[in-house]
């Protein structure tokens, strides 16, 4: 009795010999539906955190900032020297010195809009855009230390690492959730199958009396629970996907852009109903054979 056989929906005699018991049937369908609904969210969280990690990593890894501090009389010469060094550094696509307005905008969240930036001895900030392969940060630092001692290179590694690590943790948690959901569903279906088997001891006795093998008796229960789990999980999956489809869309460049399913990711929830059926098949089969062994 394979899972594929169970999926072949034939209302044959094995499925017919066990009376339909509304309680366990409804419980199985609802459990599978609820678990599938939660699984859609866990799956979406996993995909989103992966996409966020990728985006944060990509955004921060293709740029670097150089901070240059020097006396006002030397700042011009030092800036020119640094720009020349950067121009000849392999892996640097372009450089740009941030103007006074951009520096004001950076400080505004902390000091307000009326900060007299012109009167402050602020370091000069140079934005560096890298090639996808990036530049040799260690080599550049060594060169800057000799030719422009007041220059400090920030390649964003210290910002990028915790963000990527956090996203990876989120992704791990999402997969743990998927596993827990599958385990909880298996436990619930095992209980429901156990109740159903216990309620049908007389049916099992009659089937044994007429020469039914354990495999036939088990199949009658396994088929029922597998189909119920499939139906419930399909419903839960549809509702979960619909909930995501109805979520408000974030902007293209927003921090939370990418939450939910994107592109081919919308097809991923399709694996949930067959997976739920597989879990129900295994759980019911195990429960059925355990009860049949005990009742013999």
């Amino acid at each position, binding site marked *: 009795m394979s899972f594929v056989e169970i999926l072949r929906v034939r209302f044959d*005699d094995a499925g017919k*010999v066990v009376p339909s018991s509304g309680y366990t049937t409804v419980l199985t369908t609802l459990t599978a539906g609820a678990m599938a609904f939660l699984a859609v969210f866990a799956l979406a969280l996993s995909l989103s955190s992966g996409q966020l990690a990728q985006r944060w990593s990509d955004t921060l890894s293709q740029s670097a900032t150089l901070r240059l501090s020097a006396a006002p009389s030397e700042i011009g010469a030092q800036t020119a020297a640094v720009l020349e060094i950067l121009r000849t550094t392999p892996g640097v696509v372009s450089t740009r010195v941030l103007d006074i307005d951009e520096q004001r905008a950076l400080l505004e969240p902390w000091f307000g809009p009326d900060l007299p930036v012109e009167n402050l001895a602020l370091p000069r900030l140079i934005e560096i855009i890298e090639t996808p392969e990036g530049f040799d940060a260690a080599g550049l630092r060594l060169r800057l230390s000799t030719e422009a001692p007041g220059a400090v290179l920030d390649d964003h590694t210290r910002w990028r690492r915790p963000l990527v690590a956090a996203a990876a943790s989120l992704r791990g948690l999402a997969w743990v959730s998927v596993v827990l959901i599958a385990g909880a569903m298996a436990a619930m279906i095992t209980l429901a199958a156990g109740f159903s088997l216990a309620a049908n001891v007389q049916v099992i006795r009659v089937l044994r009396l007429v*020469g*039914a093998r354990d495999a*036939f008796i088990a199949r009658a229960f396994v088929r029922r629970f597998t189909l119920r789990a499939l139906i419930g999980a399909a419903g839960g999956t549809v509702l979960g996907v619909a909930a995501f489809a109805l979520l408000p869309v974030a902007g293209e460049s927003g921090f939370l852009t990418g939450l939910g399913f994107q592109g081919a990711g919308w097809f991923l929830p399709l694996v949930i109903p067959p997976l739920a059926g597989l879990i129900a098949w295994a759980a019911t089969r195990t429960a059925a054979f355990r009860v049949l062994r005990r009742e*013999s």
Partner: protein
Amino acid sequence: MIRLANVSHDYGGRGLLSGVDLHIAPGAFHFLTGPSGAGKSTLLKLCYGELRPRSGRIELFGQNLAALSRDALADTRRRIGVIHQDCQFLDHLTLAENVALPFIATGRPVPEADLHELLSWVGLEHAADALPPTLSGGERQRAALARAVIMSPEVVLADEPTGNVDWEMSQRLLTLLVELNRMGTAVMIATHDLTLIRNAKALVSARILRIADQTLQSAGSDL
């Protein structure tokens, strides 16, 4: 076909059968009698492997019951038709489906013609689509007989088959069982109805066994 050698069995810690020897040969007809609680039903259950003995050896069609796998025991039970006093039907299936259950449960196609012929033999062709709870006691017992014989078993074991029916119906059932025996099927009927046994003497040469004091005794001349 079915042989019990020095079989003993307990029920709830109380000795029920002790040192029982029994042989059901092909074509034999046995009555098994004794007071209620003597162990008639238990002996029948031992004969078709629903119960395992505390001690002794049971052979079903030459195979040691203790050595039979679960699947092999299921296969062996197909060669034994069993009729219970309470019939043991699946109430959500029709009478015809219940009678055909041995075929359904073994995954074989139900021989429709044989099924209708059998229902006609037991006088239930009109009730094929009825659900068991809607049938009378006599109809249920005749349906149980039909289910027991649909796979052409080599032996039929009947546990108080006339316990819930009137005298006329019990005679009809007895006649059916005797007809079956004449076709070569071994029959063993457990009953406390001595009138049934006396009436059977006119129809068939039966061996009469009685359970008393946990042992199986021949009781032919007492009845």
